[in-house]
Protein backbone atom coordinates (compact mmCIF):
# COMPACT_ATOMS: atom_id res chain seq x y z
CA UNK A 1 0.00 0.00 0.00
CA UNK A 2 1.46 3.31 -1.11
CA UNK A 3 0.76 6.14 1.31
CA UNK A 4 1.75 9.66 0.33
CA UNK A 5 0.73 13.20 1.13
CA UNK A 6 1.18 14.24 -2.48
CA UNK A 7 -1.88 14.94 -4.59
CA UNK A 8 -0.45 13.27 -7.67
CA UNK A 9 2.56 11.14 -8.33
CA UNK A 10 4.54 11.73 -11.50
CA UNK A 11 4.51 8.77 -13.85
CA UNK A 12 1.61 7.10 -12.07
CA UNK A 13 -1.91 7.42 -13.37
CA UNK A 14 -4.94 7.30 -11.08
CA UNK A 15 -7.30 4.76 -12.61
CA UNK A 16 -10.04 4.88 -10.05
CA UNK A 17 -10.99 7.26 -7.27
CA UNK A 18 -12.55 5.56 -4.24
CA UNK A 19 -13.23 8.46 -1.91
CA UNK A 20 -12.07 9.48 1.51
CA UNK A 21 -10.63 6.98 3.97
CA UNK A 22 -9.83 7.82 7.55
CA UNK A 23 -8.49 6.45 10.77
CA UNK A 24 -8.43 7.84 14.26
CA UNK A 25 -7.14 6.91 17.64
CA UNK A 26 -7.63 8.45 21.06
CA UNK A 27 -5.06 7.65 23.69
CA UNK A 28 -4.51 8.70 27.24
CA UNK A 29 -1.26 8.73 29.14
CA UNK A 30 -0.84 6.68 32.27
CA UNK A 31 -0.33 8.40 35.58
CA UNK A 32 3.44 7.86 35.73
CA UNK A 33 3.88 9.72 32.48
CA UNK A 34 1.63 12.50 33.67
CA UNK A 35 3.75 12.96 36.77
CA UNK A 36 6.92 13.09 34.70
CA UNK A 37 5.27 15.60 32.42
CA UNK A 38 4.34 17.67 35.45
CA UNK A 39 8.00 17.79 36.45
CA UNK A 40 9.03 18.71 32.94
CA UNK A 41 6.60 21.61 33.13
CA UNK A 42 8.91 23.07 35.76
CA UNK A 43 12.25 22.21 34.16
CA UNK A 44 11.30 22.48 30.52
CA UNK A 45 12.50 20.19 27.78
CA UNK A 46 11.21 17.39 25.66
CA UNK A 47 8.49 15.07 26.94
CA UNK A 48 9.79 11.82 25.46
CA UNK A 49 6.91 9.79 26.87
CA UNK A 50 4.36 11.93 25.09
CA UNK A 51 6.33 11.95 21.87
CA UNK A 52 6.34 8.15 21.87
CA UNK A 53 2.69 7.95 22.83
CA UNK A 54 1.62 10.21 20.01
CA UNK A 55 3.85 8.37 17.58
CA UNK A 56 2.22 5.08 18.55
CA UNK A 57 -1.29 6.39 18.23
CA UNK A 58 -0.43 7.95 14.90
CA UNK A 59 0.77 4.58 13.65
CA UNK A 60 -2.43 2.98 14.88
CA UNK A 61 -4.57 5.61 13.16
CA UNK A 62 -2.63 5.08 9.93
CA UNK A 63 -3.12 1.33 10.22
CA UNK A 64 -6.86 1.80 10.56
CA UNK A 65 -6.91 4.09 7.54
CA UNK A 66 -4.93 1.52 5.59
CA UNK A 67 -7.34 -1.26 6.54
CA UNK A 68 -10.23 0.85 5.37
CA UNK A 69 -8.49 1.51 2.07
CA UNK A 70 -7.79 -2.19 1.60
CA UNK A 71 -11.45 -2.95 2.27
CA UNK A 72 -12.56 -0.72 -0.58
CA UNK A 73 -9.95 -2.21 -2.88
CA UNK A 74 -7.46 0.65 -3.16
CA UNK A 75 -3.76 0.19 -3.73
CA UNK A 76 -2.70 3.68 -2.68
CA UNK A 77 -3.75 6.54 -0.43
CA UNK A 78 -2.89 10.00 -1.67
CA UNK A 79 -3.11 13.47 -0.16
CA UNK A 80 -2.83 12.19 3.41
CA UNK A 81 -3.31 14.77 6.17
CA UNK A 82 -2.78 14.54 9.92
CA UNK A 83 -4.69 16.33 12.59
CA UNK A 84 -4.30 16.33 16.36
CA UNK A 85 -6.68 17.65 18.94
CA UNK A 86 -6.72 17.40 22.69
CA UNK A 87 -10.23 16.26 23.49
CA UNK A 88 -9.86 16.24 27.26
CA UNK A 89 -7.23 16.75 29.90
CA UNK A 90 -4.69 13.99 29.41
CA UNK A 91 -6.06 12.54 26.19
CA UNK A 92 -5.31 13.37 22.59
CA UNK A 93 -7.02 12.38 19.40
CA UNK A 94 -5.01 11.66 16.31
CA UNK A 95 -6.90 11.74 13.06
CA UNK A 96 -5.54 10.73 9.67
CA UNK A 97 -7.38 11.00 6.42
CA UNK A 98 -6.64 10.67 2.75
CA UNK A 99 -8.01 9.77 -0.65
CA UNK A 100 -8.12 6.10 -1.57
CA UNK A 101 -7.24 5.51 -5.21
CA UNK A 102 -6.31 2.74 -7.56
CA UNK A 103 -3.06 3.43 -9.38
CA UNK A 104 -2.24 1.62 -12.58
Amino acid at each position, binding site marked *: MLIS*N*MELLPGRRVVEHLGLVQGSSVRAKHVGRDIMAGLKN*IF*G*GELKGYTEL*LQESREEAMLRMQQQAEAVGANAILNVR*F*STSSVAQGAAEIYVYGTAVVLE
Partner: protein
Amino acid sequence: MYDLLLLLVLLALGYGFGQYAERRHYRSIVEREARLNALPAIASRYPPAEPHYQHALVTGSTVVSVDYFKRFLAALRNLFGGRVTSYESLLDRARRESLLRMKQQARTLGAVMVFNVKYETASISKGAGKTIGSVEVLAYGTALIPTPSR
Protein backbone atom coordinates in the same frame (compact mmCIF):
# COMPACT_ATOMS: atom_id res chain seq x y z
CA MET B 1 5.43 33.16 53.08
CA TYR B 2 5.88 29.51 52.11
CA ASP B 3 4.08 30.15 48.85
CA LEU B 4 6.46 32.93 47.94
CA LEU B 5 9.43 30.76 48.82
CA LEU B 6 8.10 27.89 46.72
CA LEU B 7 7.51 30.25 43.80
CA LEU B 8 11.07 31.54 44.01
CA VAL B 9 12.51 28.02 44.18
CA LEU B 10 10.44 26.92 41.19
CA LEU B 11 11.48 30.00 39.23
CA ALA B 12 15.14 29.41 40.00
CA LEU B 13 14.90 25.73 39.07
CA GLY B 14 13.03 26.56 35.91
CA TYR B 15 15.53 29.21 34.92
CA GLY B 16 18.59 27.08 35.61
CA PHE B 17 17.49 23.80 34.06
CA GLY B 18 15.43 25.46 31.35
CA GLN B 19 18.28 27.61 30.05
CA TYR B 20 20.66 24.69 30.19
CA ALA B 21 18.26 22.38 28.35
CA GLU B 22 17.50 24.97 25.71
CA ARG B 23 21.11 25.78 25.00
CA ARG B 24 21.99 22.11 24.74
CA HIS B 25 19.01 21.46 22.48
CA TYR B 26 19.93 24.33 20.15
CA ARG B 27 23.49 23.11 19.91
CA SER B 28 22.31 19.63 18.97
CA ILE B 29 19.82 21.06 16.45
CA VAL B 30 22.44 23.19 14.71
CA GLU B 31 24.85 20.28 14.52
CA ARG B 32 22.31 17.88 13.07
CA GLU B 33 20.97 20.49 10.67
CA ALA B 34 24.45 20.85 9.21
CA ARG B 35 24.68 17.08 8.83
CA LEU B 36 21.29 16.74 7.12
CA ASN B 37 21.67 19.80 4.94
CA ALA B 38 22.32 17.67 1.87
CA LEU B 39 18.78 16.33 2.07
CA PRO B 40 16.43 19.16 1.14
CA ALA B 41 12.87 19.30 2.45
CA ILE B 42 10.64 21.29 0.12
CA ALA B 43 7.08 22.53 0.48
CA SER B 44 6.39 22.29 -3.25
CA ARG B 45 3.46 20.16 -4.31
CA TYR B 46 4.80 18.99 -7.64
CA PRO B 47 7.71 16.59 -7.50
CA PRO B 48 10.11 16.12 -10.43
CA ALA B 49 8.99 13.40 -12.84
CA GLU B 50 12.48 12.25 -13.81
CA PRO B 51 14.27 10.12 -12.76
CA HIS B 52 11.90 7.54 -11.35
CA TYR B 53 11.30 7.68 -7.65
CA GLN B 54 9.58 5.58 -5.09
CA HIS B 55 7.42 7.47 -2.66
CA ALA B 56 7.01 7.02 1.06
CA LEU B 57 5.35 9.04 3.78
CA VAL B 58 7.81 10.21 6.44
CA THR B 59 6.93 11.87 9.72
CA GLY B 60 8.74 13.41 12.66
CA SER B 61 7.21 14.67 15.85
CA THR B 62 8.27 16.29 19.08
CA VAL B 63 6.52 17.26 22.29
CA VAL B 64 8.33 19.97 24.20
CA SER B 65 7.43 21.76 27.35
CA VAL B 66 8.21 25.28 28.46
CA ASP B 67 9.89 25.71 31.86
CA TYR B 68 8.41 27.41 34.89
CA PHE B 69 10.45 30.58 34.55
CA LYS B 70 9.45 31.14 30.95
CA ARG B 71 5.83 30.48 31.72
CA PHE B 72 6.06 33.13 34.40
CA LEU B 73 7.55 35.58 31.90
CA ALA B 74 4.80 34.78 29.45
CA ALA B 75 2.18 35.43 32.11
CA LEU B 76 3.77 38.85 32.72
CA ARG B 77 3.70 39.49 28.98
CA ASN B 78 -0.02 38.88 29.06
CA LEU B 79 -0.35 41.96 31.20
CA PHE B 80 1.66 44.27 28.99
CA GLY B 81 1.21 42.71 25.57
CA GLY B 82 3.89 42.31 22.92
CA ARG B 83 6.04 39.50 21.64
CA VAL B 84 6.18 36.44 23.83
CA THR B 85 9.76 35.46 23.04
CA SER B 86 9.79 32.62 25.54
CA TYR B 87 7.14 30.77 23.56
CA GLU B 88 8.67 31.71 20.23
CA SER B 89 11.85 29.83 21.03
CA LEU B 90 9.84 26.85 22.29
CA LEU B 91 7.95 26.54 19.03
CA ASP B 92 11.05 27.18 16.97
CA ARG B 93 12.84 24.33 18.73
CA ALA B 94 9.90 21.99 18.33
CA ARG B 95 9.55 22.72 14.59
CA ARG B 96 13.23 22.34 13.83
CA GLU B 97 13.49 19.16 15.87
CA SER B 98 10.47 17.62 14.12
CA LEU B 99 11.84 18.49 10.71
CA LEU B 100 15.16 16.92 11.66
CA ARG B 101 13.47 13.73 12.81
CA MET B 102 11.51 13.57 9.58
CA LYS B 103 14.70 14.06 7.56
CA GLN B 104 16.46 11.41 9.60
CA GLN B 105 13.70 8.94 8.80
CA ALA B 106 13.91 9.87 5.13
CA ARG B 107 17.64 9.35 5.14
CA THR B 108 17.36 5.87 6.66
CA LEU B 109 14.98 5.02 3.80
CA GLY B 110 17.62 6.21 1.35
CA ALA B 111 15.69 9.25 0.14
CA VAL B 112 17.28 12.19 -1.69
CA MET B 113 14.51 14.72 -1.13
CA VAL B 114 11.37 15.27 0.91
CA PHE B 115 8.46 16.89 -0.91
CA ASN B 116 5.23 18.54 0.16
CA VAL B 117 6.32 19.13 3.75
CA LYS B 118 3.52 20.13 6.08
CA TYR B 119 3.55 21.13 9.73
CA GLU B 120 0.90 20.46 12.31
CA THR B 121 0.94 22.05 15.75
CA ALA B 122 -1.22 21.05 18.68
CA SER B 123 -1.27 22.11 22.29
CA ILE B 124 -1.18 18.84 24.18
CA SER B 125 -1.99 19.63 27.76
CA LYS B 126 -3.10 22.76 29.43
CA GLY B 127 -0.42 23.67 31.91
CA ALA B 128 -0.87 25.42 35.24
CA GLY B 129 -2.43 28.83 34.99
CA LYS B 130 -4.19 28.03 31.71
CA THR B 131 -1.15 28.75 29.57
CA ILE B 132 0.28 26.45 26.89
CA GLY B 133 2.25 23.93 28.91
CA SER B 134 3.55 21.78 26.11
CA VAL B 135 3.15 21.70 22.37
CA GLU B 136 3.39 18.93 19.88
CA VAL B 137 4.72 19.64 16.43
CA LEU B 138 4.41 17.10 13.66
CA ALA B 139 6.23 17.47 10.37
CA TYR B 140 5.37 15.18 7.50
CA GLY B 141 6.13 14.89 3.85
CA THR B 142 6.69 12.52 0.98
CA ALA B 143 10.19 11.12 0.65
CA LEU B 144 11.51 10.54 -2.85
CA ILE B 145 13.63 7.42 -2.99
CA PRO B 146 15.49 6.88 -6.27
CA THR B 147 14.89 3.48 -7.82
CA PRO B 148 17.77 1.74 -9.57
CA SER B 149 17.75 2.79 -13.24
CA ARG B 150 15.93 0.40 -15.50
